[in-house]
């Protein structure tokens, strides 16, 4: 796996392939985070595409040696919030399924149903809790990193993740994972 700061430097120098590597690396998690935030796979797709392009436009603002991930999630979150503001009048009562079909209809159906349940559960959480628990579970970020991305205190991040996990476990049920799933890095 290529060194991330080196990839960022290469992108800053205009290297297209380096940007491709970064995009590949963050595409899945960015999509999942955007879906969690927007609860709409179509909007999430737009948001992820726009976030990557905004990140590329502003890549010179990223200091040498800084990690790409937390900075990129800040761009993604801001893109999602802008998108949601623009589409504020659009109803989210009906949550669409997958953005496209796949080769296995049964698996796709199962996936859509599970996604719908998870998105419904996420929909009951405040935006900050949703984003905090997604970053914490998705990227394995520490509370410090989650706090940096969301611009909140470390203790607040810890509280958001704790409450979000408790709510999700209650709504989703055993599929959410065992009680002890929360990592033990509560000091970070």
């Amino acid at each position: 796996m290529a060194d991330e700061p080196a990839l960022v430097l290469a992108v800053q120098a205009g290297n297209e392939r380096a940007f491709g590597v970064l995009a590949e690396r963050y595409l899945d998690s960015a999509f999942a985070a955007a879906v969690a935030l927007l609860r709409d796979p179509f909007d999430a797709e737009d948001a992820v595409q726009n976030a990557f392009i905004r990140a590329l436009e502003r890549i010179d603002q990223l200091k040498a040696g800084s990690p790409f991930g937390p900075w990129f999630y800040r761009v993604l979150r801001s893109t999602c919030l802008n998108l949601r503001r623009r589409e504020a009048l659009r109803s989210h009562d009906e949550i669409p399924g997958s953005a496209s079909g796949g080769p296995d209809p049964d698996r796709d159906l199962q996936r859509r149903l599970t996604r719908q349940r998870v998105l419904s559960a996420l929909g009951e959480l405040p935006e900050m809790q949703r984003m905090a628990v997604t970053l914490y579970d998705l990227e394995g970020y520490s509370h410090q990193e989650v706090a940096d991305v969301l611009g909140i205190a470390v203790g607040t991040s810890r509280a958001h993740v704790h409450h979000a996990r408790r709510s999700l476990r209650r709504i989703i049920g055993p599929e959410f994972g065992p009680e002890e799933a929360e990592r033990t890095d509560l000091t970070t």
Partner: protein
Amino acid sequence: MRHRRDWPAWLEALRPDDVTRERLRRAILNDARRMLRARRTGWMDVAAQWATMLSPVAAVVTLVFAGLAVMRAPAESMAEAPPRVEDLVGSAPGEAIPAVFTRDTLEDLDLDVVLTAIATAE
């Protein structure tokens, strides 16, 4: 950062399916390619615009220097030393040397001496 298989089960449901992933990947890379090329083309355009703007100035400067060079050329030829008597004699070896030229032309000639020499020659 977590790897693909490390995601918790509840988040797996949010992962893009293969078709969505491929469509998104292509869209992002196409946008990025367009943007990076536009950025490169932008630099070339700026350089070309500067070259276009500066070319008349360069032409004027060249003309000015060429004019100065032409103006300096006659002045330098006038500053050359006057022909020496020996050279003139050498160019017409059969002719007698007029008395007026037997003197060193580098010396200042007194008007009386010149008039006397002319009268003697006649």
